């Protein structure tokens, strides 16, 4: 436990001091991007890893917050008002997403979230009057809380880190709370949970709302970082990326999606310098991870470590599938 504390402390120091040890502004900006995607991946994994619901439409919520922010700023709203509106609109959108997609679970849920995500993409792309269509919307100003201009990359990075740390802390409390336990129960044995007195639908709906809030926070940070938003932000690829991050890093853990986000973003940035085939790489990684490492990197490594020190492995999340398990008679 103390070793773990020490590692977390070291990671925290390295993260806070990142602007000092990475070479340039571009790399600091990549650091911010990783943190933002880590929040997004955690958002998606709250549903995959803890509720057993795979959403392929979360980019819709991410970009709903982003577009609302951009549109509001463009319309002359102040920063706080624009942020508040972006969160509110994204949460309203999340409620609609959740109400519709929670009509089913399993594969039906995937299909409906995918379709809903495509609606958001379609709106971003076609509703030119509001979204600028293919040209997207530029955002000129980053906020300056307490007079500190976030236009400076290292300032923006530290601000993002604060939000990220808050999100991770809240996430941890959430998944270890009684509500988190209830949520996991609905993932493993929904019918049993109902018989025990739980309102399974409401538990899932609430989790979806929390997930939507995280996606919205990530979307808002994303727009501030890129100072731009356009339809690809809402595309199916953009929904698939956080899913890949979560399952490659290790679904159902906290560290997993963060590590996954870092890996995917680093690969993306490095790869884009050499090849333009990001989709090929993304798709290939998906296939390889699902086929050969369904439990993800973090639990996989943990298992190897634990085997050395003799303790139990955690169960893989993705490989378990959506079927209800029946113990042998």
């Amino acid at each position: 436990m103390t070793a773990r504390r020490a590692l977390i402390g070291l990671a925290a120091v390295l993260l806070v001091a990142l602007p000092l040890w990475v070479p340039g502004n571009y790399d600091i900006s990549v650091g911010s991007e990783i943190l933002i995607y880590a929040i997004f991946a955690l958002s998606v994994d709250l549903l995959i890893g803890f509720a057993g619901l795979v959403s392929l439409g979360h980019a819709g919520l991410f970009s709903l917050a982003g577009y609302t922010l951009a549109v509001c700023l463009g319309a002359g709203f102040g920063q706080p008002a624009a942020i508040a509106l972006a969160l509110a609109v994204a949460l309203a959108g999340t409620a609609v997403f959740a109400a519709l997609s929670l009509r089913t679970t399993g594969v039906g849920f995937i299909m409906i979230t995918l379709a809903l995500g495509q609606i958001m993409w379609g709106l971003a792309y076609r509703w030119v009057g509001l979204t600028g269509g293919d040209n997207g919307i530029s955002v000129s100003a980053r906020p300056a809380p307490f007079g500190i201009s976030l236009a400076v990359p290292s300032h923006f990075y530290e601000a993002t880190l604060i939000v990220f740390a808050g999100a991770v802390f809240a996430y941890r409390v959430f998944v270890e709370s009684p509500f988190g336990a209830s949520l996991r129960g609905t993932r493993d044995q929904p019918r049993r949970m109902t018989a025990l007195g739980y309102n399974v639908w409401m538990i899932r709906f609430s989790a979806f709302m929390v997930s939507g809030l995280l996606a919205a926070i990530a979307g808002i940070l994303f727009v501030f970082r890129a100072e731009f938003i356009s339809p690809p932000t809402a595309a199916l690829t953009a929904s698939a990326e956080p899913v890949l991050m979560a399952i490659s890093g290790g679904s159902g853990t906290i560290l997993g999606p963060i590590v996954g986000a870092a890996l995917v973003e680093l690969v993306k940035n490095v790869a884009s310098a050499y090849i333009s085939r990001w989709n090929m790489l993304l798709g290939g990684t998906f296939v390889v991870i699902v086929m050969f490492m369904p439990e993800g990197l973090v639990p996989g490594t943990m298992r190897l470590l634990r085997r050395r020190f003799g303790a139990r492995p955690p169960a893989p999340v993705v490989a378990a599938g959506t079927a209800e398990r029946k113990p042998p008679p």
Partner: protein
Amino acid sequence: MWTILAINSVTFGGLLFLLSAGFSLIFGLMRVPNLTHGSMFMLGGYIGGSLIASWHLPFWLAALVAAAAVAAFGGVMERFLLRRLAGSVLAQVLVTLGVAFMVSDFSLMVWGGDPLSVDAPRALAGGTRALGVFFPTYRIAVILIAVAVAAILWAMLDRTRLGAMIRAGVDDPEMARVVGIRVSRLFTIVFCLGAGLAGFGGVMGAPILSVYPGLDFAMLPLALVVVILGGAGSLPGSLVGSIVIGFIYNFGLVMVPQLAYFILFLPMVLVLVLRPQGLFGRAAP
């Protein structure tokens, strides 16, 4: 104006039927929403288009070859990827998604970023004017072909042994296995069939839609919506869903162009709220 719009709607519905009938069968039988289905449609269009443009194959021959090629691709995918993940639907879905991304990039690499336009077969170019309305021959032909395919599929499902097995599998996969149907071979056949239909649809659609990067992920949600509307594994459901979506899409494009894509999904939302198992699907047990 309205008549031509109606014809276009039915034509588009016919294309959607070619796309979604296979999707629905695969989904009904294997419970896997094949997220590569839009890619198969696009791949069919590209292969068919290239065969016509570069190899000067006759249109219909090119369509059959393209359909066969895509069917083979589907078979390989089912055998070597999905089969290994049997029992974990979630993993299978993610693999179909991964392959879809790979196909999209592969196509960009091979066929480039410019749309590939394909001419309709010469015999079907132009149109006829009757009762003061212009009927474009090729579009009418697409409608007839979709109807013919629907009839053939229906006859196959209703009259043949293979069809009986597929129906049994859709109704109750467990039971089908128990009574000795070789479900695994059935899966491969149905996956090939669905892929082939999508590929064929892609060639049929090429003269109307042209083939371009992104066609895959433009078509995929339409297949999803049709199946959510029509119910999984239901052929009449696919047909009705396709026509409905064809009308909404085409009329939407003319009447509210900025929101055409949005209103496309409204019937899906309605169906989900009122009848989650789809218009023609059976209630879940």
